[in-house]
């Protein structure tokens, strides 16, 4: 190099241009500053906690009827009142949280698994596989969601959480696949992918080592925003009587049961409906916040 006599330390560009901060912590910091998203995140964490707790404890048993006066309004001992069978609504709400979260997150796990795999492969290899995939995606888009769900539920049998998760995932995987495919198509043109190829990377390394990590941002956002959509779908199905079967609690089925009594005891419908609404909103705010936080262009 230019000067043999210099000590190693001062030969180097000693200081990196910016303080050490990974892209994730940068995003985290930006997310924290978004009040709405931060509040939503706390709320959702709370709902998750409630859901987990409900596995082992609820204020009152939900399998026994008459624990509280049927149609009873909110009172000290029962903050949300009782439903038509005399069950404590608060306890049922907690269990409903568990159901909703399981369906919401469960669906997304399936969607991620299928969507990411299909999207990555189609986007990277293109050719006939991509053509087939695109065709399949478009076919699925053509079929009305509800119809697919109905058919599957009838075929496989009602009631089980697994069936519902599967049914919903079948109608939702295309969004993720299309997103991932789009991301793959654009990322594979970036110079560092070319550089990886020049470095001798095999396709598997390029797909999972380079493309996927760089597509995670939009994927996470999509998955987050997909949760409320799934929960809502389940609520709707349960409302129609096709989803969760009694006596399992789900916010949708609770609302369905309570509709008949809306004039006498509106709280039976209101409680789960409000819970649904707030939770869905929270997921959407969080999703938006994540999108802004993870947007690489906003690095300032």
């Amino acid at each position: 190099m230019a000067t043999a006599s210099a000590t190693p330390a001062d030969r180097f560009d000693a200081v990196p241009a910016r303080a050490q901060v990974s892209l994730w912590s940068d995003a985290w910091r930006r997310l924290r500053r978004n009040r709405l998203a931060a509040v939503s995140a706390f709320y959702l964490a709370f709902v998750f906690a409630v859901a987990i707790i409900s596995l082992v404890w609820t204020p009152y048993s939900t399998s026994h009827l008459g624990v509280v006066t049927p149609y009873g309004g909110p009172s000290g001992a029962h903050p949300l009142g009782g439903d038509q069978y005399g069950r404590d609504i608060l306890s049922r709400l907690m269990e409903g949280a568990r159901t909703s979260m399981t369906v919401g997150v469960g669906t997304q796990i399936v969607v991620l698994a299928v969507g990411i795999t299909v999207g990555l492969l189609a986007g990277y290899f293109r050719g006939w596989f991509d053509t087939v995939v695109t065709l399949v995606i478009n076919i699925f888009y053509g079929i009305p969601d509800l119809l697919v769900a109905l058919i599957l539920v009838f075929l496989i049998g009602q009631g089980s959480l697994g069936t519902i998760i599967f049914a919903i995932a079948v109608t939702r995987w295309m969004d993720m696949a299309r997103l991932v495919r789009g991301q793959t198509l654009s990322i594979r043109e970036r110079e560092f992918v070319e550089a990886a190829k020049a470095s001798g990377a095999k396709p598997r390394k390029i797909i999972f080592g380079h493309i996927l990590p760089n597509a995670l941002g939009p994927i996470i956002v999509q998955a987050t925003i997909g949760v409320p959509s799934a929960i809502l779908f389940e609520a709707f199905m349960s409302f129609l009587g096709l989803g969760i079967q009694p006596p399992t609690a789900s916010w949708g089925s609770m609302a369905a049961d309570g509709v008949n009594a809306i004039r006498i005891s509106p709280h039976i419908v209101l409680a789960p409906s409000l819970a649904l609404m707030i939770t869905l909103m929270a997921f959407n705010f969080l999703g938006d916040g994540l999108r802004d936080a993870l947007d690489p262009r906003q690095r300032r």
Partner: protein
Amino acid sequence: MAEAAVAAEARRAPGRTLLDVREIVKHFPAGVGQSVKAVDGVTFDIKSGETLGLVGESGCGKSTLGRVIAQLIAPTSGSIVLEDVELTKLRGEKLRQQRRQLQMIFQDPFASLDPRMTVGDIVAEPIDNFGVMRGKQRTERVKELLRVVGLNPYFTNRYPHEFSGGQRQRIGIARALAVNPKLIVCDEAVSALDVSIQAQIVNLLEDLQAQFNLTYLFIAHDLSVVRHISDRVMVMYLGKLVELAGRDDIYDHPKHPYTRALLSAIPVPDPEVQSQRRLVELKGEIPSPINPPAACRFHTRCPIARVPGICSEQEPLLEEKARDHLSACHFANEVS
């Protein structure tokens, strides 16, 4: 430093032929029955230990040619022989294995490094991909590579965005060196850098060449940098080589009107000199590579073309017009 300059001059005597490129053609489909003739029959060789400069303006095909040489794009036809191995016949795993010998340094220091990987992993990627070494040996090699390119070896856990453009380019260079390739294609390796950093990186490339006896194909549009770093220079226009000669020869006595026009257009940072230069104006615009002009591709813009005449009827071949000086022009000796 004086020693480095002397060593550099001593090394200038080129060795044996490392890369033999013959009639490389690369066409890209462009709609019905049409194609972009990005590279349209290019023949040259690169000698071991030399720096071959490749210049031309946009649309000339130099980047495409660079990528074909680096095996990132398959040529439509032609042959590339690297030390007795015919690269164009290789596929799949065999081709991948050959990549060890041909590495590339990219133009954009911001886009050519995976933002989600640590610097250490980026530099080690070729090592990992070819399974050359593992564990402690690998770690030491990465540190050594960083040291050699002038970066602090303790930065292996940092991410690219923490570094400046010049530093990132050094990381890219370290990566290119990782598995001791025979040939490094530098595709506009300094074009995206600030002027003062360019000088640092150019010096670095020269030092590394002396230290490790590297061979470079240096692709650039900046003829000033190319003059400085190259031993021989080739000029491309619309997919063809129009001139190939030794560095001083081509700059001082160009034998192709395009080269001469190009040289006259480069601004020189010296007001006295600038005020005395005459720009050789070229008529019109660069034709589309989908429909390049017939015969001599340059005849539509050439200041000395005989049109109608031989220039619009017969394609000039790239031939030796003076010792070690090839030009594709019917009137090569009238140019200077």
